[in-house]
């Protein structure tokens, strides 16, 4: 009986190995095709070479999904189409740290022309796994708040090594939003923030905001949460004590942003956020960008590496470039805000960034 036990376990493993090997052979074959350049080509694609890239995404999340779509769109615009001359190995750890490491090891073991990592933990483990396997596959990261603090790169201007990418936090965006609040809302003396202090990006952004607010004599009042179900209570606890709401790119809080919008509308409190998507949902204003654009920027770097032979070592780590003030007029009405011409004047792209 015990023998049979072992046999069963082995057969389970064997089944998976068989499945794995089958797929692995395919990968090897495509690798050969890449090196010899006789991959099947479709009419209409300028490039006869088939590229293989891997994407490690930490968790399913609207912003991170949009980033991934942006990356693939940039590749597509450059003639690299998934399923034609581009093989994409997409992995998602579903916020499980152990799976995140396993995925990084798998990516390091495979042969790829380029590896993309979306979010800080993915980038950290991919960089580590590839450096261990001593391959110099180029790595690009996206949606990382502070690549220096996470030690993904040691220098933003000249990353060296094989890692570069785009950070999704431009301190300038936070500073501009805080200045906007200080100048246009003189009656705001206390700004309330709902925050999960377990998220590195949220903590870093809140610190930047606090520094800027100190200059204007505005106090940042924190309400800490640990999961989405606590967000409503935190927002309501702030409602009586603060003159406006603010949230960072805090994954937990953004996931439950609807409840904050509700509270802001009920209690007539102006609500400022950190990304365009939440303003479209019903926050009043942000200085920011679309995550799709963020991904697109990373995708353009990917094209440079794949098609133009650039090396990450010479590509400087950039911040999100396209920043603009984004206002939602419907939200303004709901939160009892009078949108003045001075506010509208601060929006550069009025056609797209003033949401009716």
């Amino acid at each position, binding site marked *: 009986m015990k023998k049979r036990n072992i046999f069963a*376990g082995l057969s389970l493993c064997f089944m998976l190995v068989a499945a794995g090997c089958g797929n692995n052979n395919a990968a090897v074959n495509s690798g050969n095709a890449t090196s010899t350049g006789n991959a099947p080509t479709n009419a209409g694609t300028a490039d006869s070479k088939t590229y293989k890239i891997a994407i490690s995404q930490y968790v399913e999340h609207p912003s991170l999904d949009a980033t991934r779509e942006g990356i693939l769109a940039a590749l597509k615009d450059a003639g690299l189409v998934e399923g034609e001359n581009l093989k994409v190995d997409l992995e998602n750890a*579903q916020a499980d740290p152990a799976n995140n490491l*396993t995925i990084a090891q798998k990516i390091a073991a495979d042969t790829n022309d380029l590896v993309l990592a979306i979010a800080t933990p993915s980038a950290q483990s991919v960089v580590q796994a590839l450096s261990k396997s001593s391959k110099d596959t180029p790595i690009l990261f996206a949606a990382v708040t502070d690549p220096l*603090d996470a*030690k993904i790169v040691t220098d933003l201007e000249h990353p060296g090594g094989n890692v570069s990418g785009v950070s999704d936090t431009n301190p300038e965006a936070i500073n501009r939003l805080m200045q906007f609040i200080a100048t246009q809302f003189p009656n705001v003396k206390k700004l309330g923030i709902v925050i999960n202090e377990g998220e590195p990006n949220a903590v870093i952004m809140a610190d930047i905001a606090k520094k800027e607010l100190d200059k204007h004599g505005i106090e940042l009042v924190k309400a800490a949460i640990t999961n989405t179900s606590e967000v409503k209570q935190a927002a309501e606890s702030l409602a009586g004590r603060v003159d406006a709401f603010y949230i960072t790119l805090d994954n937990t809080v953004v996931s439950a942003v609807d409840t904050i919008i509700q509270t802001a509308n009920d209690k007539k409190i102006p609500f400022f956020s950190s990304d365009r998507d939440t303003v479209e949902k019903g926050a009043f204003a942000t200085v920011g960008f679309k995550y799709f654009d963020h991904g697109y920027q990373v995708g353009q770097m990917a094209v440079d590496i794949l098609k133009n032979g650039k090396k990450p070592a010479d590509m400087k780590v950039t911040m999100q470039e396209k920043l603009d003030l984004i206002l939602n007029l419907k939200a303004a009405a709901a939160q009892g805000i009078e949108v003045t011409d001075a506010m509208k004047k601060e929006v550069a792209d009025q056609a797209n960034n003033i949401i009716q």
Partner: protein
Amino acid sequence: MYDSMLGAVEMGLLYAFMALGVYITFRILDFPDLTVDGSFTTGGAIAAVMITNGYAPWLATLAAIAGGMLAGMCTGLLHTKGKINGLLSGILMMIALYSINLRIFGGKPNWSLMGDTTLFSSINPLLVLPFIVLFVKILMDLFLRTDLGLALRATGDNARMIRSLGVNTDNTTILGVSLSNGMVALSGALITQYSTFADSSMGIGMIVIGLASVIIGEAIFGAGNVFRATLAVVLGSIVYRIVVALALYVPWLRPSDLKLITAIIVIFALVFPSIQRFLKQKNMARKRSLELAEQAISSKRGGTIDA
């Protein structure tokens, strides 16, 4: 493929400490301890903060074990002295640890150890890990054979009996849960050094991995005695990681299926023994009915009909 299998074995060995910890509470003490999700991060946090501040990696690892044991001790105290239900005391400690871990992290929930000296920076983990795991496993086996260890095992089997022999089961429970969480924190500290970063969310889902390792190990390798059971747990941890790593290579699986795979692996490991039993019984029944039929035939041939 081969490289990622090696990586899976390394990770299986690293998580084996955690699985052994879960084995102590789950199987030996019969105590469903959910502190694990918190104490794993505690180990990682202590190791990360100490190593970045220039302490020796081995010292940081020992401190992590101590931190985990302290957390386990609190759970044990809540359960035994506070008379709180075991499941609940674990949950309470787990959520308390979330905040405590953030305190340890000093308000910075992600610490990177890139470039710092860790236990694995000058040595291939695969060369040392099997020996460390084996060493800890044997140490645990030996401990479970001492009088104290036997008292611990008896606490899970039959608390009333061992109390009648004058053993304080409160103390053995506290000790067991402490040891268990010390092991879990050791695993967290090693994983942090292996992956070169610690994150406030690194312990999420650990109890599931631990239970899966224990159950898979027992189903495949059997759990005849303590020596064999602990070996099964270590191997179960490795098998679990290998299966997850292999699942990434299956072309028709989507990334979002990972959690489902975990569930299926555990269900398979749990259901498999009973399917085996069922088949065995069916076999026996068939044999028995054949025997009876044969008997009936032979009795017809040679026997006379009793009136």
